[in-house]
């Protein structure tokens, strides 16, 4: 323990000596140039004292990013300075400032007969936050329906879901589940349609059955039944008006419409 103390003291002494020596050594080559001679000092006549007639900030409260205007008017001053980076200014004037936080501007006016000091404070408030960026544009119900849902087709005077329509209807069902989840208040109208050949009255019943059997299929694969509204249009709303089988087939359909 004693041994170590002794060692430390020795080291410190050595260091002190070294520093001293170095300091002495440096003095020689880097002699500072003599300071410029002071300006010839005029005989200072004792003038009147400086007076700051006004020093204002307008507005005194700004939202960050806005400007406030400092205005001043000073008499009898030999030198006027404003801090916060503004520096020397003339006896009257204005300056726009853009403080980012509450800032007090001090003006010092020096006069022969005495100095004057004044200060104004510009309060800076934080602007309200901008609205959050718009969410990525979401497809409308109508767009989703037309993009993801496909009509299905029936045989003449039949309302059973055809073998070749089952896969389509299953895809529709999956899409309905997603769409109805995304649009919680939406309902899907299941429209049953017929071709122009059957009787209008009978076709109301046939369209009703087409709508019902499609709805039943969708409910069985898990689409909520209370969100599927059946409606028969019989042959009142054909999509095609030619008198041939390809056109009739287009009309014998179940069509789906999303309603918010």
């Amino acid at each position, binding site marked *: 323990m004693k041994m170590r103390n002794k060692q430390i003291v020795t080291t410190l002494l050595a260091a002190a000596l070294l520093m001293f020596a170095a300091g002495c050594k440096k003095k020689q080559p880097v002699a500072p140039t003599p300071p410029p001679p002071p300006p010839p000092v005029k005989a200072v006549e004792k003038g009147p004292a400086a007076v700051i007639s006004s020093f204002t900030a307008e507005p005194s409260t700004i939202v960050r990013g806005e400007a406030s205007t400092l205005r001043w008017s000073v008499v009898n001053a030999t030198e006027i300075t404003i801090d916060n980076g503004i520096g020397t200014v003339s006896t009257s004037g204005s300056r726009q400032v853009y403080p980012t936080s509450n800032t007090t501007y001090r003006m010092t006016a020096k006069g022969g007969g005495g100095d004057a000091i004044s200060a104004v404070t510009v309060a800076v408030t934080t602007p309200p936050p901008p609205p959050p960026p718009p969410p990525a544009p979401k497809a409308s119900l109508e767009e989703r329906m037309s993009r993801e849902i496909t009509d299905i087709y029936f045989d003449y*005077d039949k309302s059973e879901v055809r073998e070749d329509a089952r896969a389509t209807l299953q895809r529709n069902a999956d899409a309905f589940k997603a769409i109805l989840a995304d649009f919680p208040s939406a309902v899907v109208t299941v429209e049953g349609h017929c071709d122009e*050949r*059957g009787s209008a*009255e009978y076709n*109301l*019943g046939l369209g*009703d059955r087409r709508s*019902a059997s499609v709805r039943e299929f969708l409910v069985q694969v898990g689409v909520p039944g209370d969100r599927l509204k*059946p409606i*028969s249009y019989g042959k009142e709303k054909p999509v095609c008006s030619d008198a041939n089988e390809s056109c009739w087939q287009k009309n014998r359909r179940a069509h789906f419409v999303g309603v918010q």
Partner: protein
Amino acid sequence: MKTTRPTTKLTLLAIAFAAVAWPQDQQSNIILKITGGTKSKIALPDFRGAGGASQFTAVFNETVFGDVQRSGMLEMAAKSFYPLNPPQQEGDLRGPAAAAQPRRGAAPESPNCNGRCLTDWSGPPLNANYLGFGYLAEQGGQLVAFGHLYNTTVPDLAGAKAFRKLYNGPLTEEGARKVAHEYAADVLNQFGVPSLAGSKIYFVSDRGGRGTKEIWVMDFDGANQRQLTHFKSISTMPSVSPDGQRLAFTTYAEGQPKIKVMSLETMRFLPFMNPQASMNATPSFTPDGSRILFASSLAGYSSQLYIADRTGSGLRPLSDNRAIEVEPKVNPKTGADVAFVSGRGGFQQIYRMNIDGADVTRLTSGEGEAANPAWHPDGQHIVFKWTRGFAPGNWNIFIMDVASREVVQLTHGMGRNENPTWAPDGRHIVFSSNRNGSTQIFTMLADGTEVRALTSAGTNSMPVWVK
């Protein structure tokens, strides 16, 4: 199914015509005329008009001629043979003596008095048994028609005169049509033909806007077409109570197809409670108007038939199966049996049942598709549409004697001929056809003749003819 032979057709028509003729005085005479195939021949020279009435002579003459011709009860003498100077009033007629003295040197076949003698009309080439004539005049701002009818085969003028009558109406085209219908009705009445004047045809038209259908009404001859409903939706399948006071129809005005009932007196809607179903449609009234039969998907799977009070309460099912059933129509005479359309045996056919739903039998043979049954006022015949012998969708109009199942085909493949219903006289049928391109409303005699289009604007369908 029995094949349709000409004798069947004749018998059927005789029944249909006789049914109308029973209440009339000359009933036996008329049956004789119809079954014997002889008709009276009538000449109807144009009325001329004096003063402010002259501008309405064309519509008057056209209306009279049309009414008489379309009755099918009279043969129209060829106008081109009419003498040049027909009588306008009684004083214009000359007695038999004047006619009996042809001047020497005159062409023997030329009429003796240029139209002023009845023999000018009864003789060749016209051979008309009856002559109707008269004139129009303006009197005190009113239109007055002086109408006459003479039996040209009776030699003395007093005995030949069937009637002379005065008709009054407003000095307008409408007034001219009114007095014309009245005069024609009096002429036809002489032959035991009930007049259709004043009867109306309710129908469906899309002329109010593309994609919409509204209920319209017009006079029996196509005049005065006007819109009754204004839903800007699809309103269709009208039916009128037999007393003509209520209109029931199927409408999409509130989304799913529903029945609405309207008073034709006040034009206000009457309450009708629709069952909670995806579809309520094809309403029709019982003969007393107290109840409504209709089709509803209330049971869940398929459209079935129901009966309810005219307010919709007291609902009872009439059928219970998995087929599509629509268009229940109660026999207007018995009130006890119902004709309807069902797909229970395959493609849609016409069936009948008791009004309690029992005793269902198929009326049509099972060939093709059959629909739109409408009862004749006699309760023994229906008119309907059928595709028998044609591809699906090519409907023709048929009449069936329900008891014997014998049928007569009235149209033969000219487009789609649909929704036939009877005129109140039981002798005319109104129906829709697209034979000229767009679907329009036509009338015809129950034998398929005298076909005439009543509409041309937009498309028009589902006519119902009521008193």
